């Protein structure tokens, strides 16, 4: 690091209250909305805390998402990769026009209509897991019983992972997502999962069908006279990781929040039309993937009145933006009637979450079904004893003991 300059804070800032953003965000936003900050990687970057600045940065063509570029602001030490096996950039690391082409290839799989077509199967998966929960001992851990397996199974089926491989698949992804494993074990799980997906794609290439996403992508590539094995492996990897822990954590956090706000939960229970607005509000309030909105400038560009020079990193603190009083009145209140959908919990611009409508569908079915089938559900320990993921890139809950 060659920068010798004053930084206002070192990221990541940690939430003091599990239901609120880090308290420093408000001071940053009012006193220094575009400020220099230190990062765990040793880099220095700009931090954006105003909603409009974050939206402007994310929709500007002058910021790159290339995570392999040394200028990209990293929230963890850069991963060392064997030279014989270079990283294959996935969608989140690509810039237009390459990104536009790759996203357009797969976005048809995630349209609102396609997600609606998955509804009966997701409902069935949720019902089966609630059957098992109700038949088992009390208290039970909702994370293991519902939050993790539901999105995992759904993405598994969507991708086309054979049922017989499911345990291998889930064991590795759980390990990768756990803080309880050593970095070596996590790296091993990463490589095993990558090798697994490599072999899976190879098998599918030998016998591609229209039955699953990977098969459809292979057939589509062939029709266009193309074939990019590595891109499919990286796509499968991204969809698995991005579609898994994120939704799982929102299921757990949403359940706790609704149980802690019984008057708002009552509204959701009384009117199914209130579930989706409640989900938007939960997404805004928690903003669990807040540093996914990191980029670096590819040209000198002014954001929020500050000149950001080419090569400088920018972290759009989307959780700060989602609590910006200029974007949301009384932003720290959890209010399912707010009706505000311009939050940046799924990002903004060309990289806005590909699986957002799958996430909404899963959350809607889970909350509707959970509170209908187990109306007496309650948290089995005091809320201040719950283990929130304060030091994880994706915020959430390690465990959620519930009883009924």
């Amino acid at each position, binding site marked *: 690091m060659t920068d010798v300059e004053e930084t206002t804070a070192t990221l990541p800032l940690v939430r003091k209250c599990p239901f609120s953003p880090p308290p420093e965000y408000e001071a940053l936003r009012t006193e220094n909305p575009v400020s220099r900050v230190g990062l765990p990687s040793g880099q220095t970057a700009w931090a954006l805390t105003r909603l409009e600045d974050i939206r402007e940065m994310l929709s500007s063509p002058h910021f790159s998402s290339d995570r392999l570029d040394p200028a990209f602001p990293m929230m963890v030490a850069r991963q060392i990769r064997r030279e014989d096996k270079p990283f294959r950039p996935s969608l989140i690391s690509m810039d237009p026009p390459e990104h536009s082409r790759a996203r357009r290839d797969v976005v048809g799989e995630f349209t609102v209509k396609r997600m609606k077509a998955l509804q009966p199967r997701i409902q069935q998966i949720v019902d089966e897991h609630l059957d098992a929960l109700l038949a088992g001992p009390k208290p039970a851990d909702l994370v293991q019983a519902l939050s993790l397996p539901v999105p995992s199974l759904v993405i598994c089926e969507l991708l086309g992972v054979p049922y017989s491989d499911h345990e291998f698949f889930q064991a590795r992804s759980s390990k990768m997502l756990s803080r309880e494993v050593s970095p070596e074990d996590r790296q091993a799980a990463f490589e095993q999962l990558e090798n697994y997906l490599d072999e899976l794609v190879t098998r599918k290439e030998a016998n591609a069908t229209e039955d699953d996403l990977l098969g459809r992508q292979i057939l589509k590539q062939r029709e266009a006279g193309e074939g990019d094995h590595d891109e499919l492996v990286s796509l499968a990897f991204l969809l698995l990781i991005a579609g898994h822990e994120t939704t799982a954590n929102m299921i757990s956090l949403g359940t706790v929040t609704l149980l802690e706000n019984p008057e708002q939960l009552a509204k959701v229970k009384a009117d199914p039309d209130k579930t989706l607005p409640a989900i938007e509000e939960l997404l805004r309030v928690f903003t669990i993937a807040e540093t996914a909105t990191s980029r670096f400038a590819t040209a000198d560009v002014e954001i929020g009145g500050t000149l950001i020079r080419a090569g400088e990193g920018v972290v759009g603190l989307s959780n700060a933006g989602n609590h910006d009083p200029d974007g949301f009145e009384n932003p720290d209140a959890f209010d399912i009637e707010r009706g505000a959908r311009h939050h940046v919990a799924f*990002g903004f611009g*060309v990289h806005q979450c590909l699986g957002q409508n799958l996430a909404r569908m899963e959350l809607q079915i889970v909350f509707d079904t959970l509170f209908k089938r187990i109306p007496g559900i309650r948290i089995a320990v005091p809320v201040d004893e719950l283990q929130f993921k304060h030091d994880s890139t994706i915020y959430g809950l390690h465990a959620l003991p519930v009883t009924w």
Partner: protein
Amino acid sequence: MKIIADTGKCVGAGQCVLTDPDLFDQSEDDGTVIVLTPEPEGDEAEENARTAVHICPGQALSLA
């Protein structure tokens, strides 16, 4: 009020369809926006069109 869609900028997020499925749809092939009702009539439809423009992540929608 007239809705103008730039499918070249559309990223297929489907936020417009979620806002008002009477005004917008998505192409089955590449998820890009299809405007079903280019000239929305009535307060609610006009308000929905404004919301869709505001939240469109690709800034592919505008009003004329």
